[in-house]
């Protein structure tokens, strides 16, 4: 009954409409909760993703290569004759096998099916006694015959698209109209041969079976009108030690250097740029423990030679110019990932990488400049196995020991980057010592990009160092005064004025620094030095003078107005210093200080230099440091200062012994955040330095910073290339550095906040 009673007095809160409405409100509440959760987590995840994405792009740089065997089949063309050479074309669809008797077969690399067959030797009485290839990109082969002559042949591939299907047709072409070129006039069989051929000349080096080393050069001389051409022949023999047997012979693609190795473990280097007078430059032992030389190949570009030794080491050598302008062979780097005799080395066609196969059947993938063993894999290979790499370095042929040919797919996109090549000194070809170099692109096509982040990181640190040198004293001293000594009315004016500079676009600061400030500094350099002494001195002098003023004048000016009094003083001093600059320069430095510094102190002066950048970035970070440290000082609890003052300490003593000590973590975090900003600053660095990647502590020279490098090069780098990923790595380095500085600062600041609240 009572229930009915209440129902009659109160409105019905539980009718259908109210229930529906409550239900609707509940759904809305849940919906908003989920919306906020999903949205919030999503946004936070998106932000975190930035770091992950950078890592994701960078990681492939450090991944090892992948080698997967795609096929294995009986040696195409039969195994009754042994193989002397394998090669593949651009698309690695077709392989070529050169057999002992001078027969060549072309085959499908996936299946091993024969596609074509050619014979080099037309005169069946002759036999092939030696074989070599020229630079792999030119696809020239040389066959040394038993009568002291050589045949020069090339292989070529034409691509057609019948029915929109790519069809590659291989063929063999002749050089010198297919005629044999006489190398040895005594017609002894050639046991070793090496040749290079281009449009203007062909050079052949050969060793006969009676151990003579012969050099023949055929240069095409075109007539003045280009209508007639004659071949000029130069031949010369090179004296060699008769007791040693030459085992390897290689000629560089420019036809200027000749290297050969003998069975005693010596490597000989001849300068043959004058073909009629070959010069022995040097003879070196390539191995310490008397290991024999088992393989000798040029790295692509024809500057370095790679020597494979019987103990499994591979050493890289190239001639280095010394102080007296003469060349000596240097063992630039060694690889000892493999432990049995190196049977074959297959250099990549375009990059400075190579493959090496050893007697135990290990196949190593290397990059010479990066000094990196990218991959080591076991293949089924025997003591006389052969190795070939595709022109794009994406496939490998290995002749196994059980008369099979293995076709491997090679995925090796970024071998040229390693920890040591990014941060350490690298000895590049044609350089006389290991260096830190950043040079990502060049006009010439056969150029090796040089990715050392060290000079860039150095540039970043140099910029931040000068910036902090300028900004930290100014900002912190300013903060001390503003927070503690300045009158409240002025503080309300000064603080926003300085803080608003934090929002000033750095592109404007960079523009002013580069186009307005840099010429002024150059013209008034003495003033720039003087001003750092004159302004503090004038401040002290003003302070002293103020102290000496009669008291009735001093008392008329309210306390905390020192900064106001100093403004005209500083303006005046600056004006005086600038006016005096030219006379001083004329009087002491012959009217041109930058020139004088170059002549007398050996300091080179760039118009856009670290000094300019330091001041410009310093200017950009002053508001950040100022604002945060001012907050920290201002936030020191009042009872500490009043206590100190009550005990008889002067205001300055209170500041130095109580306030600064308490606020020091806050000031530290202000410096950290300022440093983070200075490191990442981009536009100022781009605009106010020369952006050359040099490493030099000179204040009057430029640099190239990580951030500027990214901004300048990123738009031009190709998606997915090594350059692109290295730039991402530079971004990641910046990200991590600033993130670290900021985190330290933030943690310190939070601690400080709890400290203040408990004091």
């Amino acid at each position: 009954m009572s229930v009915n009673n209440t129902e009659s007095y109160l409105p019905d809160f539980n009718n259908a409409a109210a229930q529906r409405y409550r239900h609707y409100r509940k759904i809305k509440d849940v919906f908003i909760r989920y919306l906020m959760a999903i949205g919030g987590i999503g946004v936070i995840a998106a932000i975190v993703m930035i770091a992950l994405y950078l890592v994701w792009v960078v990681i492939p740089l450090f991944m090892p290569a992948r080698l997967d065997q795609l096929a294995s089949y009986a040696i195409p063309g039969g195994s009754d004759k042994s193989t002397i050479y394998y090669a593949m074309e651009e698309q690695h669809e077709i392989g070529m096998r050169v057999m002992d008797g001078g027969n060549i077969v072309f085959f499908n690399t996936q299946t091993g099916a024969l596609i074509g067959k050619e014979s080099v030797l037309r005169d069946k009485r002759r036999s092939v006694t030696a074989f070599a290839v020229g630079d792999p990109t030119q696809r020239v082969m040389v066959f040394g015959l038993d009568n002291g002559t050589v045949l020069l042949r090339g292989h070529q591939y034409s691509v057609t698209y019948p029915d929109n299907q790519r069809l590659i047709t291989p063929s063999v072409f002749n050089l010198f109209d297919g005629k044999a070129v006489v190398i040895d006039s005594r017609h002894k069989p050639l046991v070793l041969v090496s040749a290079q051929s281009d449009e203007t000349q062909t050079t052949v080096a050969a060793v006969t079976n009676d151990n003579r080393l012969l050099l023949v050069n055929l240069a095409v001389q075109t007539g003045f009108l280009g209508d007639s051409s004659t071949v000029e022949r130069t031949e010369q023999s090179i004296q060699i030690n008769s007791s040693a047997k030459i085992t390897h012979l290689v000629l560089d693609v420019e036809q200027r250097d000749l290297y050969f190795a003998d069975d005693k473990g010596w490597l000989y280097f001849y300068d043959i740029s004058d073909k009629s007078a070959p010069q022995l430059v040097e003879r070196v032992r390539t191995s310490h423990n008397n290991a024999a030389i088992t393989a000798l190949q040029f790295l692509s570009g024809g500057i370095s030679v790679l020597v494979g030794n019987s103990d499994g080491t591979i050493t890289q050598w190239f001639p280095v110019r010394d102080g007296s302008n003469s060349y000596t062979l240097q063992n630039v780097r060694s690889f000892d990932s493999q432990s049995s005799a190196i049977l074959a080395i297959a250099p990549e066609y375009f990059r400075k990488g190579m493959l090496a196969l050893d007697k135990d059947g290990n196949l190593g993938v290397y990059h010479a400049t990066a000094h990196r063993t990218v991959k080591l894999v076991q293949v089924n290979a025997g003591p006389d196995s052969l190795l070939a790499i595709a022109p794009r370095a994406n496939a490998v042929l290995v002749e196994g020991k059980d008369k099979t040919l293995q076709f491997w797919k090679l995925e090796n996109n970024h071998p040229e980057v390693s920890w040591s090549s990014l941060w350490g000194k690298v000895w590049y070809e044609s350089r006389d010592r290991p260096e830190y170099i950043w040079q990502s692109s060049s006009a010439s096509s056969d150029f090796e990009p040089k990715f050392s982040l060290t000079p860039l990181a150095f540039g970043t640190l140099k910029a931040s160092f000068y910036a902090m040198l300028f900004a930290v004293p100014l900002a912190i001293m300013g903060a001390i005064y503003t927070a503690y000594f300045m009158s409240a009315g002025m503080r309300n004016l000064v603080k926003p004025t300085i803080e608003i500079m934090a929002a000033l676009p750095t592109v404007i600061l960079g523009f002013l620094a580069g186009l307005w400030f840099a010429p002024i500094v150059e013209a008034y350099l003495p003033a720039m030095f003087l001003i750092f002494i004159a302004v503090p001195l004038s401040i002290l002098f003003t302070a002293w003078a103020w102290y000496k003023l009669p008291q009735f004048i001093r008392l008329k000016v309210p306390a905390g107005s020192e900064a106001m009094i100093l403004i005209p003083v500083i303006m005046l001093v600056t004006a005086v210093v600038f006016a005096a600059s030219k006379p001083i320069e004329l009087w002491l430095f012959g009217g041109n200080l930058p020139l004088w510094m170059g002549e007398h102190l050996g300091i080179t002066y760039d118009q856009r230099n670290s000094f300019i950048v330091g001041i410009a970035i310093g200017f950009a970070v002053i508001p950040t440091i100022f604002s945060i440290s001012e907050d920290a000082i201002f936030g020191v609890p009042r009872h500490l200062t009043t206590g100190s003052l009550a005990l008889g300490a002067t205001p300055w003593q209170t500041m130095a012994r109580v306030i600064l000590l308490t606020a020091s973590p806050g000031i530290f975090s202000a410096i950290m955040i300022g440093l983070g900003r200075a490191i990442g600053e981009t536009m100022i660095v781009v605009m106010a330095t020369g952006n050359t990647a040099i490493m030099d502590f000179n204040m009057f020279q430029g640099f190239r910073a990580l951030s500027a490098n990214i901004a300048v090069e990123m738009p031009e780098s190709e998606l997915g290339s090594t350059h692109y990923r290295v730039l991402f790595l530079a971004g990641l380095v910046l990200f991590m550095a600033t993130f670290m500085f900021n985190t330290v600062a933030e943690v310190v600041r939070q601690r400080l906040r709890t400290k203040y609240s408990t004091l």
Partner: protein
Amino acid sequence: MISVRLKNWLDSGTPYIWLNAGAVSVSVLLVVGLLTLIAVRGLGHFWPKAIAEFEYTDAAASITRIVGEIVEQENVPRARLAEIDARIPDNAEYIDRYLIKTGNRDHLGMDFRWVVATGMSDLAYPEDLVAIERREWGNMYGSLLALKIDGKEDASAGSPVWERFQQAIASTQLLHDQIEYIEKDLIGDINYRIERLRLRQNRLAMSGTNNQLALEQIKQEQQTLQQQFDSYTEELSGLYAQLAQYSITVRISDGTEVELSLGQVVRAYQPNAMSIFGKIHFYIEKLWEFVSDEPREANTEGGIFPAIFGTVMMVLIMSILVTPFGVIAAVYLREYAKQGMLVRIIRIAVNNLAGVPSVVYGVFGLGFFVYFIGGNIDELFFSDTLPSPTFGTPGLLWASLTLAILTVPVVIVSTEEGLSRVPRSIREGSLALGATKAETLMRTVLPMTASAMMTGLILAIARAAGEVAPLMMVGVVKLAPSLPLDGHMPFLHLERKFMHLGFHIYDVGFQSPNVEAARPLVFATAMLLVLIIIFLNLAAIHIRNKLREKYRASEQH
């Protein structure tokens, strides 16, 4: 005695206080000086400068007549000049050097020239000297001799040649506007439609269906468009012929008489004869041209309207993207997430992201937005135009998104701060009255936070408007062929590249072939950008102060 007092003085610490005060003075002077510099150089550029005329004896003792504006004066030690010029008198240690803007780049080979004061004689400012702004080759200085129509000297009406010249400029300007309308708007429209037809054709070909009817229709449309195009070009050639009728003869500094077609002339003035009001009028006109016109001559002349427009568009799109996401993330962190270690870490991380260099965001934007997302969008929706990318290339959308990611921490931090300032009593009151958490949030808490959100947004905009480094990678160009907003469907072209004030400064100041000529314009652009950003920041500070007062008041109740 003195030393004791000095020691006392030093011990008291007063000198250190003064040194600290000095640091404040220096900082303030730097800030004020910088702003003054930008303002003076930026605003001074548009004031008409007098044209000087003088005889100049150069180092090789040959005498030339120079006409031009004196741009800069420099005081150089004698030694530096004596190497170049042996005739410098020995008695003076310093010699004045002037930078003269001589104009007439097409005739003199250069438009700026340094002259030494000692070689100058007969300096005068004749009233009849004319400065002519041209569409190409920079300014022309000289005296106006005659106005020709159809190659014949126009001697009608007997009014002075200067007045007739001004009238002729007005009428040729009209013709020029017409030409521009036809070339840009009408023919641009036809080109756009032809391109659309071509794409339709491609799509038909790709779909493989042999739809003769559709093909026929396309062909017909193409024909009509071609006819329209032909009629426009005919009209254009008529207008060009009309324009070519007018020409003037000007005697330039070296005495040669030069013929100049009026189609080339933008504006002509006689600064030496101008009254102060004339100059003010001219100044306002130039200022208006600067903010409303398109750039000429590789961005070194004319206006910066496309850059202003691009900056505003980008910032607008960024704001639309950043506000909801920033606010939702902040509300989640402050109101819904369980407060603990994890949230603290996230809060620190979000805070720190505001300090990550902007160039890193640019790298991310290029890799993730442009290449990854843009590339996939292209493959899914714009495969008919591939391989030329639509979204897979830097553009407005990606630039805005990148800046949104860059500025979202600012909005989050500011909104969170606002949320934390809402008094607990207000929430509890709302909940006690039976409101759900969502209702409390939507009806009471968020409205009270509105101004904090505004502050965050304004700070985000101020940061975004000034950023350049990331934009260089994700969509800014030195000269965009068309604005991202126009009359063609879908009106807002998010995939287009755009111009930007900050990048304009970098590009004109550092990549321009004629830096000397471009520099004043860069100062003017810088001033505009600084004004915008300072205005936005002051607004943010103002709103923040208002907000604080409001809560102080509500806490007292």
